[in-house]
């Protein structure tokens, strides 16, 4: 146990160094940094269009009021911050790492190869923009509904956000791992990435079968819907249990797949 804690502590320290280095690197190219934020605000605006449609139509969507749907939209935007700011910047460069044999350098480092290959880069501009905007939307929804939240509800919401982050990381890393076998997986990766936007609308919009597939088969709906369901007190015991089990299952699966994939790595260009 002591050893595991030491390993975790080491990885947290290393991650903090990565973040600091990334911020320094981004500050060198300020136009890139600020135009990246402008771009993310543009995407944020597109996400808000879905909220505008629901609000202006004035309809309750399958039992959920527009204010409740605002909480779903805000949660989706918070998790987009993690997805775009912390993960995708790494996942996109995975092909280059494998194709050009650059993974060799990471193999000799005293930290996990998966950790360094999938988390070394971050874009704090995107992360902070999305997380801030998402929190504002969630708060707005909660205030408009006049909900009084307990500490337990806020902690539970944060816990399901963490679970969503873990599932999002695992789910979207899988198509990138295929790069170890197929080298060029850009089409698969890009098509799969567009599925992130499926959470632009709450899962209650889809029919029952899509919801079941999106929760239990490919748990994409678990990522952004479960925290909102929890805070709105609309979570069934089954969803509560699955919300805690799914990230563990997804993470273990992706870890096993990574280990198999790394055995297949042939260090092509070095």
């Amino acid at each position, binding site marked *: 146990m002591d050893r595991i804690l030491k390993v975790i502590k080491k990885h947290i320290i290393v991650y903090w160094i990565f973040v600091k280095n990334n911020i320094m690197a981004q500050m060198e*190219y300020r*136009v*890139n*940094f*600020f*135009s*990246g934020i*402008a*771009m993310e*605000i*543009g*995407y944020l*605006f*597109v996400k808000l*269009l*879905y909220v*505008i*449609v*629901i609000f*202006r*139509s*004035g*309809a*309750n*969507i*399958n039992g959920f009021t527009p204010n409740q749907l605002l909480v779903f939209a805000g949660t989706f935007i918070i998790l987009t911050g993690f997805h775009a700011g912390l993960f995708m910047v790494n996942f996109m460069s995975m092909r280059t790492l494998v194709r050009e044999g650059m993974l060799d350098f990471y193999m000799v480092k005293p930290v996990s190869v998966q950790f360094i290959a999938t988390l070394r880069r971050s874009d704090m501009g995107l992360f902070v923009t999305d997380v801030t905007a998402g929190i504002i939307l969630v708060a707005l929804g909660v205030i408009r509904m006049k909900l009084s939240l307990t500490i337990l509800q806020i902690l539970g919401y944060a816990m399901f956000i963490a679970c969503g982050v873990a599932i999002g990381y695992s789910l979207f890393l899988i198509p990138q791992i295929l790069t170890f076998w197929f080298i060029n997986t850009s*089409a698969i990766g*890009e*098509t799969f990435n*567009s*599925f992130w*936007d*499926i959470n*632009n*609308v709450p899962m*209650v*919009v*889809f*029919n029952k079968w*899509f919801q079941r597939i999106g929760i239990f088969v490919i748990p994409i709906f678990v990522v952004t819907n479960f925290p909102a369901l929890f805070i709105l007190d609309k979570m069934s015991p089954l969803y509560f249990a699955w919300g805690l089990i799914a990230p563990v299952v997804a993470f273990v699966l992706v870890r096993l797949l990574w280990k198999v994939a790394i055995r297949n790595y042939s260090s092509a260009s070095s």
Partner: protein
Amino acid sequence: MRSSNKYLFSFQIGMQNAMEYRANFFLSILAAIVPIFIQTFLWISVYKNSGNSVVFGYSFAQIIQYTVIAQLVSRFVRTDFEAEINDDIKNGGLNKFIVRPIGYFSHKLCCFLGQKVVNLVVMIILFITSILVLKFSLGVVITGQAMAAFTISLILSLCLNFLIFFCVSTLCFWLNEIGFIFEAVRIIIITLSGGIFPLSIFGSKVVSVLDLMPFKYTINFPVDVLNSQIMGWGIARGLCIQVGWILCIALLANIFWLIGSKKYIAVGG
């Protein structure tokens, strides 16, 4: 060489480019399936739960038709030359046009149109498929007049969108770094063009402001013409406005280019 041949060569270069990257266009169309899928479910919920047969001025069949056709149109009129223009300005690529018998603007326009002729083949197949699916699933009927007006307005939208993004590209003369500026501008313009949702979702006040801008004439107008939201004199009026905007922005693009090219210092090349 006949003077018209130079334009034909540029047109052919555009066609060759599009042929080479035909899979890219196909994939971009494929990526449109996800927003169509999401929005269709959203509209089903909105119409079912609101109890109204008309929402934001559209019937259910019209809004689904809008969702599908707007995605196709926005991908068809899309430009991809901003990064090339940036590269030509920053790395001295414009130098070669000093000795070439064709101007940079004409070359880019002919290339763009050549590219779109190839894309048109994919577009027509998908368009016919979508119309047939909409007809048999929702009973959507498109009149001959709407189809003819849509075709004319689509050609004009293509030219208008080219000119808008050519104007945006001239920013490269003034900015040292471009970063993601083009992408940010593109997202805003697509939204204001009605490429994601019909503009009526913003309400009448915002729509009256957007009416004064050229953007809605690139996507919202042709799609509304096709689904018979705009008919008769409204079509003629809209087409005249499109032509008016094309002339204005062409003039503006030339002015920006002339002023900007004075800052060009022919680095490298």
